[in-house]
């Protein structure tokens, strides 16, 4: 059978009206750029983490002492 | 543009934002109460809805008299009931099942609607209750079965009995069983109809619409029912024209969303207009009817019910009234809107827009004091607003149906494509294959990484919803509080539509 090469072409009407029905669809939330942290904030957070860690260490230590 | 043209048409005569006037258009009328050629404003004030119902009379900008009403007014009209001199109109206030007639602002007569037939079964049941044959609980059962089956509805007494708690029933029966059972209806709207002449001071009959789907015409002197007509549904608004002795039309908007036209010598409606939404305003202009729908639209009909036009309004209608200026041969419709505007329409053309400081609930146009073209409005917040039409004001009939909407020609605010964008496009075009390959490779790696992470999350049950198909469940924990103690709530949503909530105090 001879191979027939079919060519698909899109149809773009040049005349007449084009109507689109606007159906409301569900929407996604937008992508989220993450804000960069200021130096002060980073330092604050670091200090807070360190402080928390220190408190935790101390609590652990006192617990061990009690046991 | 509209605003400036309106400032040129209306004079601001009076505005009292704290007049304490709570009313709607059917409860407002203008009449020359003293026969001195100066019109007063009559208002049936609804008060707070349960207290403070009053009949108020304004003269100029001041309240000149007020008297208490026994019940909520549903309509107020002034009319001439006799031919005595001096020619002073009487005032009729409809409330509950009664019409109270005032002459010279003094109570004169009270007309009560005739009672309706009582269901005979109901009567028998109450009879048995009176004789102590049945206890309140079986009375309740029997009444309920009557309510479900019978053609004739139950009386108010039986209905209120059925709504009681069992503990209160006995007391209710003791209190009421001695009186005979009566069934009474209430008035929903009231209008006047000239008896035999169309003169301004001719004697008028009262036309009353009731909850029991009747329209009565009352004789003005003897207060006997001249005519009784039946409607398919309860009337809510009414418009009457003609003379009783000659020919008349009563146009009634009913609660089933239809408008019926009644005529002399026919007990049943002659024409019916079925609307697409519930009517909220009914006004006659010349021979045509203008109906406001609660879908923010205004319709025009001929009096035989042929639809003429329909326009959309920018906001829901709060009230409607005719603007009739016989000296100038001018008739139009005033439409109060919820967006604090009052529009004036002649046919479907908007003639003028009045901005008001508050949404208007009640409009009345006519002769007030000695001024012919006075527009009186009561607002939602209880204010009273009086405007006077300037003698020089002229309304132009413009067909305001707009062409294509203005927004069509507004350009969208979009960015021009930057050079950077073009450069990047070029890059994409030139090295598309390489980019695609890189992307696909990354994508396979990412798919693997995601699948791994997802598996880990599933294995350690980190996701807030269950992954099993048989027990779809979602949990969501919220911690609230300022510490040191916190409230921790867990919301479990079973996808079988049962939601449980647990609270833990930590």
């Amino acid at each position, binding site marked *: 059978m001879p191979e027939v090469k079919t060519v698909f072409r899109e149809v773009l009407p040049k005349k007449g009206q084009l109507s689109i029905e606007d159906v409301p669809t569900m929407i996604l939330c937008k992508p989220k750029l993450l804000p960069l942290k200021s130096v002060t904030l980073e330092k604050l957070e670091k200090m807070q983490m360190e402080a928390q860690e220190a408190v935790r260490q*101390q609590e652990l230590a006192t617990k061990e002492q009690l046991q | 543009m509209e605003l400036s043209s309106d400032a040129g048409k209306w004079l601001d005569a009076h505005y009292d934002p704290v007049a304490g006037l709570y009313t709607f258009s059917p409860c407002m009328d203008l009449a020359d109460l003293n026969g001195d050629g100066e019109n007063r404003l009559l208002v049936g004030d609804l008060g707070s809805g349960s207290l403070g119902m009053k009949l108020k009379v304004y003269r100029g900008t001041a309240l000149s008299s007020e008297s208490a009403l026994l019940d909520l007014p549903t309509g107020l009209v002034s009319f001439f009931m006799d031919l005595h001199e001096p020619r002073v109109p009487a005032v009729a206030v409809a409330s509950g099942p009664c019409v109270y007639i005032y002459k010279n602002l003094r109570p004169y007569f009270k007309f009560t609607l005739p009672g309706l037939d009582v269901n005979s079964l109901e009567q028998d049941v109450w009879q048995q209750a009176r004789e102590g044959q049945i206890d309140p609980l079986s009375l309740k059962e029997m009444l309920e079965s009557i309510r479900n089956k019978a053609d004739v509805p139950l009386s108010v007494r039986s209905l209120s009995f059925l709504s009681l708690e069992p503990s209160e029933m006995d007391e209710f029966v003791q209190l009421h069983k001695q009186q005979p059972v009566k069934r009474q209806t209430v008035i929903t709207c009231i209008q006047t109809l000239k008896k035999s002449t169309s003169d301004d001071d001719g004697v008028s009959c009262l036309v009353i619409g009731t909850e029991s789907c009747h329209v009565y015409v009352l004789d003005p002197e003897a207060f006997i029912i001249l005519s009784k007509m039946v409607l398919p549904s309860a009337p809510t608004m009414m418009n009457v024209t003609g003379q009783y002795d000659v020919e008349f039309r009563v146009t009634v908007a009913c609660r089933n969303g239809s408008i019926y036209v009644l005529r002399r010598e026919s007990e049943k409606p002659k024409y019916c207009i079925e609307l697409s939404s519930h009517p909220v305003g009914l006004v006659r202009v010349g021979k045509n009817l203008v109906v406001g729908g609660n879908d923010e639209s205004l319709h025009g009909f001929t009096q035989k019910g042929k639809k003429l036009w329909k326009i959309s309004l920018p906001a829901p209608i709060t009230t409607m009234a005719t603007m009739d200026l016989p000296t100038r041969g001018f008739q139009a419709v005033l439409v109060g809107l919820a967006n604090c505007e009052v529009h004036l329409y002649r046919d479907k053309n908007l003639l003028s827009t009045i901005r008001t400081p508050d949404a208007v609930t009640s409009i009345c146009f006519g002769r007030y004091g000695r001024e012919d073209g006075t527009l009186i409005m009561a607002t939602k917040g209880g204010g009273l607003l009086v405007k006077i039409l300037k003698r020089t004001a002229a309304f132009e009939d413009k067909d305001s149906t707009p062409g294509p909407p203005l927004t069509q020609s507004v350009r969208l605010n979009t960015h021009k494509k930057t050079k950077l964008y073009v450069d990047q496009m070029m890059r994409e075009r030139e090295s598309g294959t390489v980019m695609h390959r890189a992307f696909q490779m990354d994508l396979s790696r990412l798919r693997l990484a995601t699948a791994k992470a997802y598996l880990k999350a599933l294995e350690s049950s980190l996701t807030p919803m269950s992954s099993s198909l048989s027990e779809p469940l979602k949990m969501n924990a919220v911690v609230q509080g300022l510490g040191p103690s916190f409230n921790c709530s867990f919301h479990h949503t079973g996808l079988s539509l049962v939601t449980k909530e647990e609270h833990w105090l930590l």
Partner: protein
Amino acid sequence: MEVTIDPLFLAWSYFRRRKLQQCADICTKILQDNPYDQDCSLPISEAAWSLKTRALTEMVYIDEVEVDQEGIAEMMLDESSIAQVTPWNKPGWRTQPVTQSGRPITGFVRPSTQSGRPGTMEQAIKTPRTASTARPVTSASGRFIRLGTASMLTNPDGPFINLSRLNLAKYSQKPNLSRTLFEYIFHHENDVKNALDLAAQATEHAQFKDWWWKVQLGKCYYRLGLYREAEKQFRSALNHQEIVDTYLYLAKVYQRLDQPITALNLFKQGLDHFPGEVTLLTGIARIHEEMNNISSATEYYRDVLKQDNTHVEAIACIGSNHFYTDQPEIALRFYRRLLQMGVYNCQLYNNLGLCCFYAQQYDMTLSSFERALALSTSDEEQADVWYNIGHVAVGIADLTLAYQCFKLALAFNNDHAEAYNNLAVLELRKGRVEQSKAFLQTAASLASHMYEPHFNLSILSEKIGDLQSSYTAAQKAEDAFPEHVDTQQLLKQLRVHFAAI
């Protein structure tokens, strides 16, 4: 032969090299040998004492201008106009994600902008109480106090200086010691009351002529919430000496007093004295940003960049603004600039990934996200990155991947309302209506300020014929975003339904 350096000199050198702990250790040793006594002591111990206070202060020093945390009480009880600016006075706003209060998220986060202003009391107390975002009841308590107590805990021998035994009057006479002591009390001990005492006595000793002490007094008053007093001190200090910092402090007072316009004028006044001063320009930009006037804010950030082209905040803010106004290719350029400057963290790579994807630079997209995941330090960051990868997956129509990504976002952050919303959209595509509805309801309850869940819920309810729920949800969506056209259309359609007989 070993050359020994004089210990005090060594400590000083350590201090200059910011090896603060070593510096403090040496000073401690010196002080052990030469105990410091307030009344009569050697100059060496006095110097060591002073150096140690400075070292300890530097360890916990944070820029007072930048630190500003409103407590719940201040936030909920005042009605400042910045707080009440409607966030929607610019069309097209809602292309941008918003904070709890409905204010758009900008490119940069500072301590005071961290979690936005909650709309209701319930939201306020619901703020996730992790270390990074915990919110105190009032600014008089909270982070400073917690840090203060923490610093004491870490010192096994108790505090270095016992404030209750200190004779502040004497120190206030010694200008060479009083300043370091003040900073120590203010920054390290966070004891504002004693700091205020010291500052008051010192300024008296300086015959009310020293601007420095006035500024410190103002700082104390500010911390105590006495804004009018603070204003007086800062104004008076400016009369003595024009200093940039004083302008910044004073502007902060006005912002707290709800006078953003006064603050703007003050900044402009400051710019007359210090033309092109970056911190003043940034201040103006920030106020514009808070009042949602992003285009003016961007103008000022551009001015900032003209003066200092490595200003991270300005670059980040302009970048995010471009991204959300549909110019990701320009945003990409700004974020790449940050990368060149050496910023290296999760947030930046995440943003680069997004910009690359939307600017069609696909080859760099996924590797950026991979790096962002690797660099993330907290579960919240991880969740946000997965959420954004989910968007890329939706973009290339790989819905399985998208589904997994949004679920992962939820696994890392159970309160990720956006992920819930997007997951609901995917679930509905699969035809699982109940699931979708449950997710939307959760999203709506987690973040009632977002319009998307309400709108989606409205559409879903309308589809299954529950018009009443649809209407209620649409109304909520309208509250959150009045200009949203689709919501308006839906409402209109529903009203027609209701009005019909």
